[in-house]
Protein backbone atom coordinates (compact mmCIF):
# COMPACT_ATOMS: atom_id res chain seq x y z
CA UNK A 1 0.00 0.00 0.00
CA UNK A 2 2.87 2.23 0.89
CA UNK A 3 4.40 2.21 -2.55
CA UNK A 4 1.05 2.62 -4.24
CA UNK A 5 0.48 5.70 -2.17
CA UNK A 6 3.82 7.00 -3.34
CA UNK A 7 2.95 6.71 -6.98
CA UNK A 8 0.75 9.81 -7.24
CA UNK A 9 3.34 11.86 -5.35
CA UNK A 10 6.01 10.84 -7.80
CA UNK A 11 3.78 11.84 -10.68
CA UNK A 12 2.77 14.84 -8.68
CA UNK A 13 6.33 16.11 -8.53
CA UNK A 14 6.73 15.84 -12.29
CA UNK A 15 3.45 17.63 -12.79
CA UNK A 16 4.50 20.29 -10.29
CA UNK A 17 7.79 20.80 -12.06
CA UNK A 18 6.00 21.20 -15.35
CA UNK A 19 3.52 23.60 -13.81
CA UNK A 20 6.35 25.72 -12.49
CA UNK A 21 8.07 25.67 -15.86
CA UNK A 22 4.88 26.66 -17.64
CA UNK A 23 4.00 29.47 -15.29
CA UNK A 24 7.54 30.81 -15.29
CA UNK A 25 7.58 30.75 -19.08
CA UNK A 26 4.28 32.57 -19.20
CA UNK A 27 5.61 35.23 -16.84
CA UNK A 28 8.78 35.61 -18.89
CA UNK A 29 6.81 36.08 -22.11
CA UNK A 30 4.62 38.61 -20.40
CA UNK A 31 7.66 40.51 -19.14
CA UNK A 32 9.33 40.49 -22.54
CA UNK A 33 6.10 41.31 -24.32
CA UNK A 34 5.35 44.34 -22.25
CA UNK A 35 8.91 45.62 -22.17
CA UNK A 36 9.43 45.05 -25.87
CA UNK A 37 8.15 48.51 -26.66
CA UNK A 38 10.57 50.16 -24.22
CA UNK A 39 13.50 48.32 -25.76
CA UNK A 40 12.77 48.65 -29.44
CA UNK A 41 10.33 51.47 -29.61
CA UNK A 42 7.87 49.19 -31.45
CA UNK A 43 5.14 48.48 -28.98
CA UNK A 44 3.49 45.04 -29.36
CA UNK A 45 -0.30 44.94 -29.74
CA UNK A 46 -2.42 43.94 -26.73
CA UNK A 47 0.38 42.88 -24.43
CA UNK A 48 2.29 46.11 -25.06
CA UNK A 49 0.03 48.20 -22.83
CA UNK A 50 0.09 45.72 -19.98
CA UNK A 51 2.67 46.59 -17.35
CA UNK A 52 5.34 43.90 -16.89
CA UNK A 53 5.10 41.50 -13.94
CA UNK A 54 8.23 42.85 -12.28
CA UNK A 55 6.69 46.29 -11.99
CA UNK A 56 3.40 44.80 -10.83
CA UNK A 57 5.20 42.96 -8.07
CA UNK A 58 6.96 46.12 -7.04
CA UNK A 59 3.71 48.07 -6.84
CA UNK A 60 2.09 45.24 -4.98
CA UNK A 61 4.95 45.19 -2.51
CA UNK A 62 4.43 48.89 -1.86
CA UNK A 63 0.72 48.35 -1.36
CA UNK A 64 1.14 45.70 1.31
CA UNK A 65 1.29 48.32 4.03
CA UNK A 66 -1.51 50.38 2.48
CA UNK A 67 -4.64 50.60 4.57
CA UNK A 68 -6.91 51.33 1.63
CA UNK A 69 -5.83 48.18 -0.19
CA UNK A 70 -6.75 45.91 2.70
CA UNK A 71 -9.90 47.91 3.25
CA UNK A 72 -10.90 46.93 -0.29
CA UNK A 73 -10.32 43.28 0.51
CA UNK A 74 -12.42 43.60 3.62
CA UNK A 75 -15.30 45.37 1.91
CA UNK A 76 -15.46 42.95 -0.97
CA UNK A 77 -15.39 39.98 1.36
CA UNK A 78 -18.13 41.52 3.42
CA UNK A 79 -20.34 41.98 0.36
CA UNK A 80 -19.64 38.50 -0.92
CA UNK A 81 -20.42 36.96 2.44
CA UNK A 82 -23.56 39.03 2.79
CA UNK A 83 -24.97 38.26 -0.63
CA UNK A 84 -23.86 34.68 -0.56
CA UNK A 85 -25.16 34.12 2.96
CA UNK A 86 -28.53 35.56 2.03
CA UNK A 87 -28.63 33.36 -1.07
CA UNK A 88 -27.91 30.26 1.02
CA UNK A 89 -30.41 31.16 3.72
CA UNK A 90 -33.19 31.83 1.24
CA UNK A 91 -32.13 29.51 -1.56
CA UNK A 92 -31.90 26.23 0.34
CA UNK A 93 -35.41 26.36 1.87
CA UNK A 94 -36.86 27.66 -1.39
CA UNK A 95 -35.16 24.90 -3.37
CA UNK A 96 -36.28 22.27 -0.86
CA UNK A 97 -39.83 23.51 -0.99
CA UNK A 98 -39.76 23.39 -4.79
CA UNK A 99 -38.42 19.85 -4.73
CA UNK A 100 -40.72 18.46 -2.11
CA UNK A 101 -44.06 20.09 -2.81
CA UNK A 102 -45.47 19.22 -6.16
CA UNK A 103 -48.03 21.98 -6.39
CA UNK A 104 -45.55 24.60 -5.32
CA UNK A 105 -43.08 23.25 -7.85
CA UNK A 106 -45.54 23.37 -10.69
CA UNK A 107 -46.60 26.87 -9.75
CA UNK A 108 -43.32 28.54 -8.92
CA UNK A 109 -40.70 26.73 -10.93
CA UNK A 110 -41.78 27.94 -14.40
CA UNK A 111 -41.75 31.51 -13.13
CA UNK A 112 -38.33 30.95 -11.63
CA UNK A 113 -37.14 29.55 -14.94
CA UNK A 114 -38.52 32.55 -16.79
CA UNK A 115 -36.62 34.96 -14.59
CA UNK A 116 -33.40 32.97 -14.58
CA UNK A 117 -32.10 33.83 -18.07
CA UNK A 118 -32.03 37.54 -17.19
CA UNK A 119 -28.38 38.08 -16.20
CA UNK A 120 -28.02 39.36 -12.63
CA UNK A 121 -26.20 42.46 -13.82
CA UNK A 122 -29.17 43.48 -15.89
CA UNK A 123 -30.86 44.08 -12.55
CA UNK A 124 -28.33 46.75 -11.60
CA UNK A 125 -30.39 49.82 -12.58
CA UNK A 126 -33.60 48.36 -11.19
CA UNK A 127 -31.78 47.51 -7.96
CA UNK A 128 -30.33 50.99 -7.64
CA UNK A 129 -33.79 52.42 -8.18
CA UNK A 130 -35.42 50.17 -5.67
CA UNK A 131 -33.01 49.95 -2.78
CA UNK A 132 -32.44 53.03 -0.69
CA UNK A 133 -28.64 52.68 -0.43
CA UNK A 134 -26.01 51.66 -2.89
CA UNK A 135 -24.73 49.05 -0.47
CA UNK A 136 -28.11 47.33 -0.47
CA UNK A 137 -28.37 47.33 -4.22
CA UNK A 138 -24.94 45.72 -4.52
CA UNK A 139 -26.00 43.18 -1.91
CA UNK A 140 -29.18 42.45 -3.84
CA UNK A 141 -27.42 41.81 -7.13
CA UNK A 142 -24.81 39.68 -5.40
CA UNK A 143 -27.56 37.71 -3.77
CA UNK A 144 -29.33 37.20 -7.09
CA UNK A 145 -26.26 35.77 -8.76
CA UNK A 146 -25.74 33.08 -6.15
CA UNK A 147 -29.43 32.45 -5.54
CA UNK A 148 -30.22 30.96 -8.97
CA UNK A 149 -27.27 28.61 -8.82
CA UNK A 150 -28.02 27.39 -5.33
CA UNK A 151 -31.72 26.87 -5.95
CA UNK A 152 -31.11 24.93 -9.14
CA UNK A 153 -28.64 22.65 -7.41
CA UNK A 154 -30.84 22.08 -4.40
CA UNK A 155 -33.81 21.23 -6.58
CA UNK A 156 -31.73 18.92 -8.73
CA UNK A 157 -30.20 17.21 -5.73
CA UNK A 158 -33.39 16.78 -3.78
CA UNK A 159 -35.32 15.46 -6.75
CA UNK A 160 -32.77 12.83 -7.65
CA UNK A 161 -32.72 11.06 -4.30
CA UNK A 162 -32.69 7.31 -4.66
CA UNK A 163 -36.31 6.32 -4.04
CA UNK A 164 -35.18 3.34 -2.02
CA UNK A 165 -33.78 5.60 0.67
CA UNK A 166 -37.17 7.09 1.27
CA UNK A 167 -39.01 3.81 0.86
CA UNK A 168 -36.92 2.06 3.45
CA UNK A 169 -37.18 4.98 5.85
CA UNK A 170 -40.96 4.88 5.49
CA UNK A 171 -40.99 1.15 6.01
CA UNK A 172 -38.98 1.53 9.20
CA UNK A 173 -41.65 3.84 10.51
CA UNK A 174 -39.94 7.20 10.11
CA UNK A 175 -42.15 10.27 10.35
CA UNK A 176 -42.23 12.83 7.56
CA UNK A 177 -40.01 15.13 9.55
CA UNK A 178 -37.49 12.37 10.23
CA UNK A 179 -37.42 11.47 6.57
CA UNK A 180 -36.74 15.08 5.71
CA UNK A 181 -34.19 15.68 8.41
CA UNK A 182 -32.30 12.40 8.24
CA UNK A 183 -32.73 11.34 4.62
CA UNK A 184 -33.66 14.16 2.27
CA UNK A 185 -31.40 16.79 3.77
CA UNK A 186 -28.19 14.77 3.96
CA UNK A 187 -28.65 13.25 0.54
CA UNK A 188 -29.10 16.73 -0.92
CA UNK A 189 -26.04 18.01 0.88
CA UNK A 190 -23.56 17.11 -1.86
CA UNK A 191 -25.53 19.12 -4.41
CA UNK A 192 -25.87 21.98 -1.95
CA UNK A 193 -22.11 22.01 -1.59
CA UNK A 194 -21.63 21.97 -5.36
CA UNK A 195 -24.20 24.74 -5.71
CA UNK A 196 -22.47 26.74 -3.03
CA UNK A 197 -19.05 26.53 -4.61
CA UNK A 198 -20.37 27.47 -8.05
CA UNK A 199 -22.48 30.18 -6.45
CA UNK A 200 -19.42 31.52 -4.70
CA UNK A 201 -17.70 31.98 -8.05
CA UNK A 202 -20.70 33.79 -9.46
CA UNK A 203 -20.85 35.96 -6.37
CA UNK A 204 -17.33 37.25 -6.84
CA UNK A 205 -18.00 37.89 -10.47
CA UNK A 206 -21.09 39.90 -9.64
CA UNK A 207 -19.54 41.78 -6.74
CA UNK A 208 -16.67 42.97 -8.89
CA UNK A 209 -18.98 44.16 -11.63
CA UNK A 210 -21.43 45.75 -9.26
CA UNK A 211 -18.62 47.60 -7.52
CA UNK A 212 -17.31 48.82 -10.84
CA UNK A 213 -20.67 49.90 -12.16
CA UNK A 214 -22.19 51.49 -9.12
CA UNK A 215 -19.02 52.64 -7.35
CA UNK A 216 -17.01 53.37 -10.45
CA UNK A 217 -19.78 55.45 -11.91
CA UNK A 218 -20.02 57.67 -8.88
CA UNK A 219 -17.42 60.09 -7.67
CA UNK A 220 -16.49 58.52 -4.40
CA UNK A 221 -13.01 57.18 -3.74
CA UNK A 222 -9.64 58.79 -3.69
CA UNK A 223 -7.80 58.59 -6.99
CA UNK A 224 -4.70 56.45 -7.00
CA UNK A 225 -4.56 55.51 -3.37
CA UNK A 226 -6.90 52.57 -3.73
CA UNK A 227 -10.62 52.72 -3.09
CA UNK A 228 -11.67 53.67 0.38
CA UNK A 229 -15.36 53.29 -0.34
CA UNK A 230 -15.57 50.46 -2.65
CA UNK A 231 -13.91 47.05 -2.46
CA UNK A 232 -11.61 45.30 -4.88
CA UNK A 233 -13.73 45.90 -7.98
CA UNK A 234 -13.72 49.56 -7.19
CA UNK A 235 -10.00 49.39 -6.49
CA UNK A 236 -9.45 48.15 -10.03
CA UNK A 237 -11.73 50.74 -11.56
CA UNK A 238 -10.14 53.50 -9.56
CA UNK A 239 -6.68 52.41 -10.58
CA UNK A 240 -7.82 52.52 -14.18
CA UNK A 241 -9.28 55.99 -13.96
CA UNK A 242 -6.24 57.07 -11.97
CA UNK A 243 -3.95 55.69 -14.67
CA UNK A 244 -2.10 53.28 -12.41
CA UNK A 245 -2.03 50.26 -14.66
CA UNK A 246 0.10 48.18 -12.33
CA UNK A 247 -2.55 48.50 -9.69
CA UNK A 248 -5.16 47.14 -12.09
CA UNK A 249 -3.19 43.94 -12.32
CA UNK A 250 -2.64 43.85 -8.57
CA UNK A 251 -6.37 44.20 -8.12
CA UNK A 252 -7.11 41.45 -10.60
CA UNK A 253 -4.70 39.06 -8.94
CA UNK A 254 -6.08 39.98 -5.53
CA UNK A 255 -9.58 39.16 -6.63
CA UNK A 256 -8.32 35.89 -8.09
CA UNK A 257 -6.74 35.01 -4.77
CA UNK A 258 -9.79 36.09 -2.82
CA UNK A 259 -12.06 33.99 -5.03
CA UNK A 260 -9.75 31.04 -4.71
CA UNK A 261 -9.67 31.34 -0.94
CA UNK A 262 -13.46 31.49 -0.76
CA UNK A 263 -14.01 28.44 -2.90
CA UNK A 264 -11.34 26.49 -1.03
CA UNK A 265 -13.11 27.42 2.17
CA UNK A 266 -16.37 26.07 0.78
CA UNK A 267 -14.68 22.86 -0.28
CA UNK A 268 -13.07 22.43 3.13
CA UNK A 269 -16.37 23.12 4.80
CA UNK A 270 -18.04 20.61 2.50
CA UNK A 271 -15.55 17.96 3.54
CA UNK A 272 -16.29 18.73 7.16
CA UNK A 273 -20.07 18.55 7.00
CA UNK A 274 -20.22 15.65 4.54
CA UNK A 275 -17.46 13.33 5.74
CA UNK A 276 -19.05 10.30 4.11
CA UNK A 277 -18.19 11.60 0.67
CA UNK A 278 -14.52 11.00 1.27
CA UNK A 279 -13.46 7.61 -0.03
CA UNK A 280 -11.61 5.38 2.34
Amino acid sequence: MFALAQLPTMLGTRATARAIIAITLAAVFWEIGSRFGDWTGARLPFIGVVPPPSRVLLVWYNLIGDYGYWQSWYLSFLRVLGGFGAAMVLGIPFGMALALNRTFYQTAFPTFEVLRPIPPLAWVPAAILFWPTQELSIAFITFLGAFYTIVINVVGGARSIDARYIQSANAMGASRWTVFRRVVLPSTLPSIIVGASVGMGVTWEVVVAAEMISGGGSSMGSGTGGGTGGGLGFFIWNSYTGGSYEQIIVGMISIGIAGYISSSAIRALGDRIAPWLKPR
Partner: protein
Amino acid sequence: MVEATITRAGTMNEKSASGELEVRDVSKFYGTDRYPKTVVDNCSFIVKRSKLTVMIGPSGSGKSTIVRLLASFEQPSTGVVLLDGKKVTKPDRDRLVVFQESALYPWMTTYENVVFGPKAQGRQGEPLAEAARGVIDRVGLSQFQKSYPNQLSGGMQRRAELARALINNPAIMILDEPFRGLDAMTKGLMQEYYAQLFENSQSTHLFVTTDIDEAIFLADRLLIMSNFPLRLRQVIDVDLPRPRRLADVVTSDAANQLKMTALSILHEEALKSFAVGNQMADHFIESYKQRYRPDASD
Protein backbone atom coordinates in the same frame (compact mmCIF):
# COMPACT_ATOMS: atom_id res chain seq x y z
CA MET B 1 -52.07 -3.36 14.52
CA VAL B 2 -50.94 -1.02 17.25
CA GLU B 3 -51.06 -3.87 19.72
CA ALA B 4 -48.92 -6.04 17.56
CA THR B 5 -46.33 -3.30 17.17
CA ILE B 6 -46.05 -2.86 20.89
CA THR B 7 -45.59 -6.51 21.66
CA ARG B 8 -42.98 -6.86 18.97
CA ALA B 9 -41.07 -3.90 20.22
CA GLY B 10 -41.24 -5.31 23.70
CA THR B 11 -39.78 -8.65 22.75
CA MET B 12 -36.85 -7.11 20.97
CA ASN B 13 -34.15 -9.23 22.46
CA GLU B 14 -35.87 -12.53 21.96
CA LYS B 15 -36.26 -14.50 18.79
CA SER B 16 -37.53 -12.50 15.86
CA ALA B 17 -41.18 -12.12 15.19
CA SER B 18 -42.50 -14.09 12.28
CA GLY B 19 -45.53 -13.63 10.17
CA GLU B 20 -47.19 -15.25 7.23
CA LEU B 21 -47.70 -13.37 4.02
CA GLU B 22 -50.34 -14.30 1.53
CA VAL B 23 -50.54 -13.00 -1.98
CA ARG B 24 -53.99 -13.51 -3.41
CA ASP B 25 -54.77 -13.03 -7.11
CA VAL B 26 -52.41 -10.11 -7.41
CA SER B 27 -51.88 -8.41 -10.77
CA LYS B 28 -50.12 -5.19 -11.63
CA PHE B 29 -50.59 -3.15 -14.77
CA TYR B 30 -48.52 -0.20 -15.77
CA GLY B 31 -49.10 2.40 -18.39
CA THR B 32 -52.27 4.23 -19.16
CA ASP B 33 -55.72 2.94 -19.93
CA ARG B 34 -54.81 3.33 -23.55
CA TYR B 35 -51.58 1.31 -23.32
CA PRO B 36 -51.90 -1.00 -20.35
CA LYS B 37 -49.10 -3.46 -19.76
CA THR B 38 -49.29 -6.37 -17.39
CA VAL B 39 -46.16 -6.85 -15.34
CA VAL B 40 -47.51 -9.19 -12.68
CA ASP B 41 -50.23 -11.51 -13.85
CA ASN B 42 -52.59 -13.04 -11.34
CA CYS B 43 -50.09 -14.35 -8.81
CA SER B 44 -51.18 -16.30 -5.74
CA PHE B 45 -48.79 -17.78 -3.22
CA ILE B 46 -48.05 -17.95 0.47
CA VAL B 47 -44.81 -17.03 2.18
CA LYS B 48 -45.01 -19.53 5.03
CA ARG B 49 -44.33 -18.70 8.64
CA SER B 50 -40.75 -19.21 9.80
CA LYS B 51 -39.72 -20.56 6.45
CA LEU B 52 -37.30 -19.27 3.91
CA THR B 53 -39.16 -18.94 0.66
CA VAL B 54 -37.07 -18.29 -2.43
CA MET B 55 -38.55 -16.74 -5.52
CA ILE B 56 -36.56 -17.42 -8.66
CA GLY B 57 -37.08 -16.21 -12.20
CA PRO B 58 -35.23 -14.55 -15.08
CA SER B 59 -34.18 -10.97 -14.62
CA GLY B 60 -36.56 -8.37 -15.89
CA SER B 61 -39.46 -10.69 -15.25
CA GLY B 62 -41.13 -8.38 -12.78
CA LYS B 63 -39.86 -9.86 -9.54
CA SER B 64 -38.82 -6.48 -8.24
CA THR B 65 -42.31 -5.24 -8.95
CA ILE B 66 -43.82 -7.89 -6.75
CA VAL B 67 -41.33 -6.98 -4.03
CA ARG B 68 -42.56 -3.40 -4.21
CA LEU B 69 -46.13 -4.62 -3.98
CA LEU B 70 -45.40 -6.78 -0.95
CA ALA B 71 -43.73 -3.87 0.80
CA SER B 72 -46.63 -1.61 -0.26
CA PHE B 73 -44.33 0.84 -2.03
CA GLU B 74 -46.84 0.34 -4.80
CA GLN B 75 -50.39 -0.95 -4.74
CA PRO B 76 -51.54 -3.98 -6.73
CA SER B 77 -53.93 -3.26 -9.58
CA THR B 78 -56.08 -6.20 -8.54
CA GLY B 79 -55.91 -8.68 -5.71
CA VAL B 80 -54.69 -8.32 -2.14
CA VAL B 81 -51.59 -8.89 -0.05
CA LEU B 82 -52.39 -10.24 3.42
CA LEU B 83 -50.11 -10.32 6.43
CA ASP B 84 -51.37 -12.78 9.04
CA GLY B 85 -54.79 -12.50 7.44
CA LYS B 86 -54.91 -8.70 7.43
CA LYS B 87 -54.74 -6.66 4.27
CA VAL B 88 -51.65 -4.50 4.00
CA THR B 89 -51.74 -1.07 2.39
CA LYS B 90 -48.87 1.01 3.78
CA PRO B 91 -45.15 0.44 4.06
CA ASP B 92 -44.45 -0.69 7.57
CA ARG B 93 -41.59 -2.10 9.52
CA ASP B 94 -43.27 -5.48 9.70
CA ARG B 95 -42.20 -5.99 6.06
CA LEU B 96 -38.68 -4.74 5.45
CA VAL B 97 -36.84 -4.95 2.17
CA VAL B 98 -33.14 -5.51 1.69
CA PHE B 99 -32.48 -4.09 -1.73
CA GLN B 100 -30.51 -5.30 -4.73
CA GLU B 101 -27.75 -2.80 -4.34
CA SER B 102 -27.02 -1.40 -0.97
CA ALA B 103 -29.56 1.19 0.18
CA LEU B 104 -27.62 2.02 3.31
CA TYR B 105 -27.66 5.73 3.94
CA PRO B 106 -24.23 6.83 2.80
CA TRP B 107 -24.23 9.74 5.24
CA MET B 108 -24.62 7.57 8.31
CA THR B 109 -22.11 5.26 9.93
CA THR B 110 -22.92 1.58 10.29
CA TYR B 111 -24.17 2.18 13.81
CA GLU B 112 -26.31 5.17 12.82
CA ASN B 113 -27.77 3.20 9.96
CA VAL B 114 -28.71 0.35 12.26
CA VAL B 115 -30.36 2.52 14.90
CA PHE B 116 -32.19 4.67 12.35
CA GLY B 117 -35.33 2.52 12.34
CA PRO B 118 -35.74 2.10 16.11
CA LYS B 119 -34.97 5.79 16.69
CA ALA B 120 -37.54 6.80 14.12
CA GLN B 121 -40.03 4.78 16.13
CA GLY B 122 -39.06 6.62 19.28
CA ARG B 123 -36.83 4.07 20.96
CA GLN B 124 -33.61 5.31 22.50
CA GLY B 125 -31.17 5.03 25.34
CA GLU B 126 -28.98 2.23 26.52
CA PRO B 127 -31.34 -0.68 25.69
CA LEU B 128 -31.34 0.43 22.06
CA ALA B 129 -27.58 0.91 21.98
CA GLU B 130 -27.17 -2.53 23.41
CA ALA B 131 -29.57 -4.10 20.93
CA ALA B 132 -27.78 -2.33 18.09
CA ARG B 133 -24.40 -3.51 19.25
CA GLY B 134 -25.82 -7.00 19.55
CA VAL B 135 -27.14 -7.02 16.00
CA ILE B 136 -23.96 -5.50 14.59
CA ASP B 137 -21.99 -8.12 16.44
CA ARG B 138 -24.22 -10.84 15.02
CA VAL B 139 -23.29 -9.78 11.49
CA GLY B 140 -19.65 -9.51 12.51
CA LEU B 141 -19.19 -5.78 11.99
CA SER B 142 -18.30 -4.76 15.54
CA GLN B 143 -15.11 -3.14 14.40
CA PHE B 144 -16.86 -1.12 11.73
CA GLN B 145 -19.56 0.61 13.74
CA LYS B 146 -18.09 4.00 12.96
CA SER B 147 -17.36 3.38 9.29
CA TYR B 148 -19.36 4.97 6.54
CA PRO B 149 -20.82 2.58 3.93
CA ASN B 150 -18.34 3.59 1.24
CA GLN B 151 -15.57 2.52 3.58
CA LEU B 152 -16.96 -1.01 3.74
CA SER B 153 -16.39 -3.77 1.22
CA GLY B 154 -19.35 -5.02 -0.82
CA GLY B 155 -19.87 -8.02 1.44
CA MET B 156 -19.75 -5.93 4.57
CA GLN B 157 -22.28 -3.47 3.16
CA ARG B 158 -24.71 -6.29 2.59
CA ARG B 159 -24.25 -7.49 6.13
CA ALA B 160 -24.74 -3.99 7.52
CA GLU B 161 -27.96 -3.83 5.59
CA LEU B 162 -29.07 -7.17 7.00
CA ALA B 163 -28.36 -5.79 10.46
CA ARG B 164 -30.38 -2.68 9.78
CA ALA B 165 -33.36 -4.80 8.82
CA LEU B 166 -32.88 -7.35 11.62
CA ILE B 167 -32.99 -4.84 14.44
CA ASN B 168 -36.49 -3.87 13.45
CA ASN B 169 -37.58 -7.44 13.96
CA PRO B 170 -39.74 -7.55 10.88
CA ALA B 171 -42.47 -10.14 10.68
CA ILE B 172 -41.34 -10.67 7.10
CA MET B 173 -37.88 -10.02 5.68
CA ILE B 174 -37.89 -9.47 1.95
CA LEU B 175 -34.54 -9.72 0.23
CA ASP B 176 -34.45 -8.59 -3.38
CA GLU B 177 -31.39 -10.21 -4.96
CA PRO B 178 -29.26 -8.97 -2.10
CA PHE B 179 -26.08 -10.64 -3.29
CA ARG B 180 -26.28 -9.63 -6.91
CA GLY B 181 -23.17 -7.86 -8.10
CA LEU B 182 -20.93 -9.48 -5.50
CA ASP B 183 -18.25 -11.63 -7.04
CA ALA B 184 -18.96 -15.33 -7.03
CA MET B 185 -16.61 -16.08 -4.17
CA THR B 186 -17.81 -13.41 -1.77
CA LYS B 187 -21.30 -14.40 -2.76
CA GLY B 188 -20.70 -17.99 -1.65
CA LEU B 189 -19.45 -16.80 1.71
CA MET B 190 -22.38 -14.43 2.11
CA GLN B 191 -24.84 -17.21 1.32
CA GLU B 192 -23.46 -19.44 4.04
CA TYR B 193 -23.46 -16.51 6.36
CA TYR B 194 -27.02 -15.58 5.61
CA ALA B 195 -28.21 -19.17 5.91
CA GLN B 196 -26.72 -19.25 9.39
CA LEU B 197 -28.48 -16.02 10.33
CA PHE B 198 -31.77 -17.42 9.15
CA GLU B 199 -31.28 -20.73 10.90
CA ASN B 200 -30.61 -18.92 14.16
CA SER B 201 -33.61 -16.62 13.89
CA GLN B 202 -36.32 -18.77 12.31
CA SER B 203 -38.30 -15.75 11.20
CA THR B 204 -40.11 -15.55 7.89
CA HIS B 205 -38.01 -14.64 4.89
CA LEU B 206 -38.71 -14.13 1.22
CA PHE B 207 -35.57 -14.21 -0.86
CA VAL B 208 -35.65 -13.17 -4.51
CA THR B 209 -32.90 -14.35 -6.82
CA THR B 210 -31.96 -15.42 -10.32
CA ASP B 211 -29.30 -17.83 -9.17
CA ILE B 212 -30.39 -21.47 -9.07
CA ASP B 213 -27.58 -22.63 -6.80
CA GLU B 214 -28.27 -19.86 -4.36
CA ALA B 215 -31.97 -20.68 -4.45
CA ILE B 216 -31.55 -24.38 -3.71
CA PHE B 217 -28.94 -23.79 -1.08
CA LEU B 218 -31.14 -21.38 0.85
CA ALA B 219 -34.71 -22.40 0.24
CA ASP B 220 -37.30 -24.23 2.24
CA ARG B 221 -39.73 -23.55 -0.56
CA LEU B 222 -38.93 -22.56 -4.07
CA LEU B 223 -41.30 -20.44 -6.15
CA ILE B 224 -40.34 -20.65 -9.80
CA MET B 225 -41.65 -17.68 -11.77
CA SER B 226 -42.23 -17.32 -15.47
CA ASN B 227 -40.93 -14.58 -17.69
CA PHE B 228 -42.48 -11.12 -18.10
CA PRO B 229 -45.34 -10.84 -17.18
CA LEU B 230 -44.62 -12.52 -13.92
CA ARG B 231 -46.62 -15.69 -13.24
CA LEU B 232 -46.09 -18.51 -10.80
CA ARG B 233 -44.86 -21.54 -12.71
CA GLN B 234 -44.22 -24.06 -10.00
CA VAL B 235 -43.69 -24.47 -6.26
CA ILE B 236 -41.04 -26.92 -5.12
CA ASP B 237 -40.44 -27.90 -1.51
CA VAL B 238 -36.79 -28.17 -0.68
CA ASP B 239 -36.32 -30.48 2.27
CA LEU B 240 -32.56 -30.55 2.55
CA PRO B 241 -31.45 -30.82 6.17
CA ARG B 242 -30.45 -27.72 8.11
CA PRO B 243 -27.97 -26.35 9.05
CA ARG B 244 -26.63 -26.38 5.54
CA ARG B 245 -23.13 -25.94 4.22
CA LEU B 246 -22.42 -24.90 0.66
CA ALA B 247 -20.02 -27.74 -0.02
CA ASP B 248 -22.50 -30.34 1.25
CA VAL B 249 -25.33 -29.02 -0.83
CA VAL B 250 -23.28 -28.87 -4.01
CA THR B 251 -22.40 -32.53 -3.71
CA SER B 252 -25.73 -33.77 -2.42
CA ASP B 253 -27.75 -35.92 -4.81
CA ALA B 254 -31.05 -34.62 -3.55
CA ALA B 255 -29.98 -31.04 -4.27
CA ASN B 256 -28.78 -32.07 -7.67
CA GLN B 257 -32.11 -33.67 -8.45
CA LEU B 258 -33.88 -30.45 -7.47
CA LYS B 259 -31.48 -28.41 -9.51
CA MET B 260 -32.19 -30.48 -12.61
CA THR B 261 -35.91 -30.04 -12.21
CA ALA B 262 -35.67 -26.34 -11.61
CA LEU B 263 -33.14 -25.79 -14.36
CA SER B 264 -35.28 -27.42 -16.99
CA ILE B 265 -38.07 -24.98 -16.24
CA LEU B 266 -35.85 -21.97 -15.83
CA HIS B 267 -33.67 -22.55 -18.82
CA GLU B 268 -36.69 -22.40 -21.00
CA GLU B 269 -37.65 -19.12 -19.40
CA ALA B 270 -34.16 -17.74 -19.74
CA LEU B 271 -34.06 -18.67 -23.41
CA LYS B 272 -37.24 -16.74 -23.99
CA SER B 273 -35.71 -13.62 -22.59
CA PHE B 274 -32.45 -14.29 -24.38
CA ALA B 275 -34.01 -13.37 -27.69
CA VAL B 276 -32.75 -10.01 -28.92
CA GLY B 277 -34.41 -7.19 -27.10
CA ASN B 278 -35.09 -8.81 -23.77
CA GLN B 279 -34.44 -5.49 -22.17
CA MET B 280 -37.94 -4.54 -23.12
CA ALA B 281 -39.49 -5.40 -19.81
CA ASP B 282 -36.97 -3.41 -17.79
CA HIS B 283 -36.99 -0.72 -20.36
CA PHE B 284 -40.70 -0.36 -20.23
CA ILE B 285 -40.89 -0.18 -16.48
CA GLU B 286 -37.96 2.18 -16.29
CA SER B 287 -39.36 4.63 -18.75
CA TYR B 288 -42.72 4.34 -17.11
CA LYS B 289 -41.21 5.31 -13.82
CA GLN B 290 -39.33 8.16 -15.42
CA ARG B 291 -42.52 9.42 -16.88
CA TYR B 292 -45.04 8.98 -14.14
CA ARG B 293 -42.81 9.58 -11.17
CA PRO B 294 -44.46 12.24 -9.06
CA ASP B 295 -43.18 15.62 -10.11
CA ALA B 296 -41.54 14.24 -13.23
CA SER B 297 -39.99 17.23 -14.85
CA ASP B 298 -40.75 18.23 -18.37
